[in-house]
């Protein structure tokens, strides 16, 4: 029965690889979106400041 060790190994490897891959992609996307959000926020603040500066 110990020759089935490769199946056990495969099952556990697949599970943890899938979980870590998912967590990796979610956190990477989160970082990208937060960076983009900050950039849009900066643009908004600049566009609000510009007409006031011009007066």
């Amino acid at each position: 029965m110990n020759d089935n060790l490769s199946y056990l190994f495969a099952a556990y490897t697949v599970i943890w690889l899938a979980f870590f891959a998912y967590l990796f992609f979610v956190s990477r996307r989160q970082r990208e979106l937060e960076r983009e959000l900050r950039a849009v926020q900066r643009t908004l603040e600049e566009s609000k400041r510009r007409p006031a500066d011009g007066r």
Partner: protein
Amino acid sequence: MERTGPSRAPWRASSGTATGARGWMWREGLLVLTGLMVLADLYLVFMWVPTDATLGIVQRIFYFHVPLAWVAFLAFFLVFLGSVIHLVRGSRRWDRLAQSAAEVGVLFTTLVLVTGAIWARPVWGVWWTWDPRLTTTLILWFIYAGYLMVRAYSPSPAQGARYAAALGIVGFVDVPIVYFSVQWWRAIHPAPVVGPASEPGSLAPAMLITLVFSLVTFTLFFVVLLKERLALKATEEALGEARELARRSTTDTRSSR
């Protein structure tokens, strides 16, 4: 100075990383606890629990396969609940929960199918067979993969949320069918060992303890994944709102010139 309300909103709606020290501590605490539980679970599964006399070492897949299925059911229950509340109250918060739970649920169902196939090869001699339990689980996977596709390809997010909510409610009917399929039809899949359809004493005490510990660990892991996905969804929505504000602001500036 007047505060720019709408431009502040996206930051407030942003991810758990921007919710302050308390949120950060909760997140880190949950991660550490889950990590410790996973390590303890691995110890129980590989070192502590005795090897099954009939199936041998491959039976240990069961301690992850069953919790994965349980968590997938829990995820789809959340999709059902979130969808009902979204349709009744129009709540975006519950819709966000439904979508995030569906995505994590599909991940768990995929792993149920994969680990089931890996278990089936040495035990049944085939990777796949059209057994009622396997077939209904595959249908479950298609239903919620369809749910995610409806959301992704819908012309508008609001429309996609409504259509997906209907699918999330109807699709949940398959969950009890998957669970009771072993009883209702002649099947080769082992009978349930947890829940109302299980027979008392069908597992040795050490095996039951390991299984229950695994169930708790995977439920906690699910909470971690769901929280991360919810935070991402909140950031996606905040960015959408911020972009809309930026677009309006550009249009206003042009029209005032």
